[in-house]
């Protein structure tokens, strides 16, 4: 099972449309960080190491309001708990690579490239380099966009007018439509939808994805039982 430059390349190219959205979001984060008093270097360092949009927005906001390290760490753990699911679901694929390759791929893992990778895997992609390449494709615009947003102030003006924040939602809707068609997974969708809408009403949005993913896993577990 391979982890080849050809695989990186396929992943990198496939993720380009989503990279545009990441870039827009990153510029917005750069603006926010500079407003919160972070220097260009500090904002870029944060993007390159924490590498999580929602977690960075939340902690930078908290920082400006005087939050401590512990509160910030808990925020990051909560908002990034979904990555536990992503990593677990990549186990069968990435464990066929070396640990170095696997953990490097996990460092660059994001929502978009995980979804793309799982989709590619379903469609027959074998090369685990796809995960790494699509991760790099999202990571670079995140760091570069943060730098530009932080340096250049408001050249993009109000990013929400370009609706780039909607790109991930739209991609998910498209891919879910596709998956749904090919597998007829009405059961998973129904369970996920009920949980998503329920949690969204009751709890902060960082938990919606975690709860929905877990619900999907439980639904998948029992669906298999039914068929077996």
């Amino acid at each position, binding site marked *: 099972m391979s982890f080849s430059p050809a695989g990186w390349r396929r992943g990198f190219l496939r993720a380009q449309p989503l990279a545009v959205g990441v870039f827009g979001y990153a510029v917005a984060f750069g603006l926010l960080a500079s407003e919160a008093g972070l220097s260009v270097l500090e904002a870029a360092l944060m993007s390159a190491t924490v590498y999580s949009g929602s977690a960075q927005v939340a902690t930078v906001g908290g920082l400006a309001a005087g939050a401590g390290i512990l509160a910030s760490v808990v925020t990051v753990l909560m908002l990034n708990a979904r990555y536990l699911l992503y990593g677990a679901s990549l186990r069968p694929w990435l464990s066929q690579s070396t640990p170095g390759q696997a953990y490097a791929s996990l460092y660059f893992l994001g929502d978009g490239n995980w979804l793309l990778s799982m989709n590619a895997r379903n469609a027959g992609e074998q090369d685990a380099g796809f995960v790494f390449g699509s991760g790099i494709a999202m990571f670079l615009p995140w760091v570069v966009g943060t730098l530009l947003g932080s340096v250049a102030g408001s050249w993009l003006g109000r990013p929400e007018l370009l609706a780039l924040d909607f790109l991930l939602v739209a991609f998910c809707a498209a891919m879910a439509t596709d998956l749904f068609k090919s597998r007829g997974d009405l059961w998973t969708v129904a369970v996920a939808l009920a949980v998503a809408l329920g949690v969204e009403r009751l709890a902060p949005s960082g938990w919606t*994805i975690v709860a929905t993913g877990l619900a999907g896993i439980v639904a998948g577990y029992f669906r298999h039982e039914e068929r077996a």
Partner: protein
Amino acid sequence: MTLRLELLPLIFALALASFACRAGGFWIMRFVRMTPRIQSALRAAPLAVMVGIVAPAAARGHPPELLGIAVTAAVMRLTGSDLGAALAGVATVALGRALLRG
């Protein structure tokens, strides 16, 4: 270009927390035996997460986003291109927001 040294422990702690989430799930599955049932469970996660990302946007009930999701699903069904469908959805939302503001 400044870097305040007192900020470094904070950024480092956040980075560590972030990577722990990214690597933790993968690592834990070392100790779980892969059965067909577990695989079926993990395979259902992406679709559920996609629903988890789309549903809150829909639940907020803003017309541009609702229309955007509908357009995306329709274009996906018609063309089979997820890129085309996503861009059509984004264009719909951008247009809708511009009209509602204007």
